[in-house]
């Protein structure tokens, strides 16, 4: 039991259960399985994005350009769909993944080949990708009436009683779980985060692995681009503005250490769910949506404080020993 309680995921899952229980005292229908499935569906995009961000953060990097990538890719597929409604949706999704991959690869190349810190690279591409969206669209919006019914309907279609969007999220979660726990790539990603120098000696190509990680987060951003646009049925330059920090917040609440090396697929999913439940529940229990930011901000701070022990820098521990001696 003690060993079980050590896992952050269990604490987080418990916190989510308590949260749902609290909400259902005010609004009993919230805990209804149908509604919970709805909340999962609403949170799917954030979960997918958080997983993409997680692999980047695990390698001690960060990708601030994900939301801009989402915006750009979303605009590309929306414009393609408006101009050529005949393009089948699976092909559009492949295009979205490819466009996202290219944007991610640009980040990755700059980090790998020029060795610029990722926070600087993605701070630059954050503004570049969003600006590029404006150049591409000329500032125009793509509205719902220009999108084909398939484009909008695909992710809403139910398969075995669950919307396709939820299935995509489940598929992505499963894929990440396998990669992170069962492949050499997953082990390399953790190794780099724990100790980059030792990883080099162990034969891991740190630069190349970081490149791959940015390609992954880029593809995830692209996939989320299609999903976001077809869900909210409007493509504009403003789409997901500032959302990069929500994605990082979901990771942080999920126990992924910003210092790298610590975190799990389950944590990222639960972190995103936690934020998703808060944003879904507030209107339901008659709390003004204006409270949402303050509540999620407090949740982030609380999560970090609770997680503080694992995050403390080693230098301080050495110091405390030295002081005690």
């Amino acid at each position, binding site marked *: 039991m003690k060993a079980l309680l050590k896992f952050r995921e269990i604490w987080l899952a418990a916190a989510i259960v308590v949260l749902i229980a609290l909400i259902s005292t005010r609004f009993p229908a919230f805990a209804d399985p149908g509604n919970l499935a709805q909340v999962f569906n609403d949170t799917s995009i954030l979960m997918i994005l958080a997983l993409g961000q997680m692999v980047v953060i695990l390698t001690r990097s960060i990708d601030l350009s994900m939301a801009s990538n989402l915006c750009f890719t979303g605009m590309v597929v929306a414009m393609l769909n408006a101009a050529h409604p005949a393009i089948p949706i699976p092909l559009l999704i492949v295009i979205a993944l490819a466009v996202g991959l290219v944007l991610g690869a640009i980040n990755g190349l700059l980090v790998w080949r020029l060795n610029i810190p990722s926070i600087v690279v993605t701070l*630059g591409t954050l503004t*570049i990708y969003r600006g590029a969206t404006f150049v591409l669209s000329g*500032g125009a919006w793509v509205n719902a009436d220009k999108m084909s019914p398939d484009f909008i309907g695909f992710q809403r279609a139910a398969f075995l009683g669950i919307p396709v969007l939820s299935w995509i999220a489940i598929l992505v979660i499963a894929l990440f779980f396998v990669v992170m726990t069962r492949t050499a790539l997953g082990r390399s990603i953790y190794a780099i985060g724990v100790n980059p*120098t030792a990883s080099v000696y162990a034969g891991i190509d740190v630069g190349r692995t970081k490149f791959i990680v940015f390609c992954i987060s880029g593809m995830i951003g692209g996939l989320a681009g299609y999903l976001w646009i077809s869900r909210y049925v409007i493509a504009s330059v403003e789409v997901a503005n500032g959302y990069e920090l929500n994605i990082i917040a979901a990771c942080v609440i999920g126990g992924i250490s*910003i*210092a790298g090396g610590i975190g799990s697929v389950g944590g990222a999913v639960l972190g995103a769910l936690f934020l998703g439940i808060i944003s879904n529940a507030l209107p339901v229990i008659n709390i003004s949506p204006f409270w949402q930011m*303050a509540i999620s*901000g407090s949740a982030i701070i609380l999560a970090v404080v609770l997680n503080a022990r694992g995050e403390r820098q080693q230098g301080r521990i050495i110091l405390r020993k030295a002081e005690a001696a």
Partner: protein
Amino acid sequence: MTDTPAPRHIPDRLDKPLSSAIFSWEALLVVVAVAIFAINSFASPYFLDAYSLSDLTFNFTEKGLIAFAMALLIISGEIDLSVAAIIALASTMMGMAVQAGADTPVLVAIGIVVGLGCGAFNGLLVTRLGLPSIVVTIGTMSLFRGIAFIILGDQAYKGYPESFAFLGQGYVWWVVSFELVLFLIAAVAYWFLLHRTSFGRRVFATGNNPVAAQFSGVRVGRIKFILFCLTGLMAGIASVLITSRLGSTRPSIAQGYELEVITMVVLGGVSILGGSGSIVGVVLAAFIMGLVTFGLGLLNVPGIVMSIFIGLLLIFVIALPIIWRRLRGNS
């Protein structure tokens, strides 16, 4: 910070930007600034006009004021993503005070105190609990702006007194704005603080190696706490100026400023990994960003497209010394 020094197979770091490669980072920035200035004056006949040049300063003074304190904070190895949210919260508090009939001195005091308070809150969380600042300030960013949203909802506060308008709109001497004077005074003050005092040396020491600094008698925690307070204070001052310039408060005020301030600092040659940087570089970077946005504005380039240029400039300037060193190394 999230990025650590790269492992051995990649020896280059951004600590010593150009000194060993081409010439100093500041000299490079001067060249970039002169180039953009020349392009601007060719591109638009209205550019070389005293009034338009003074308008130009409003493009960077407010963010530049925060950038000075942020530069020290980043040199010490921390970061503050909540500065824009502090502006929103301080502006909201000033708006509430105006509704209650407060006058200009009270409003300025409120801006400063709220900014300082928010900075101290960040500093306490980071130093007392030993939390990573990037995460803490993502949290307080939502928290501070969230409080502004709770108070304001979808409303705006207006009705600021006329004397208050001088701070963000007034001119001290002909075309020299009050904001520019503040910017220059702050530049000198921060230059002195960072490069001429023992406090400044301790800031560098903290960023270079916090453990060694602690053993050398530097109170690392206290230094960082002071720097968070300073950053909050500057955000509070910026809030007074922005609120005065706009004459109204909305909860969405200054959205996205945090990234622009950090871009300014990094463009100024401050290593995002901590330990190196100069105030002269930040002043030049602020001026360059002002030139770019103003010049493109004269050419009717929309703001979102300007951001492409800022982003490209950031990556290009940072990459330049690295590419240069590679080329020299190969020949």
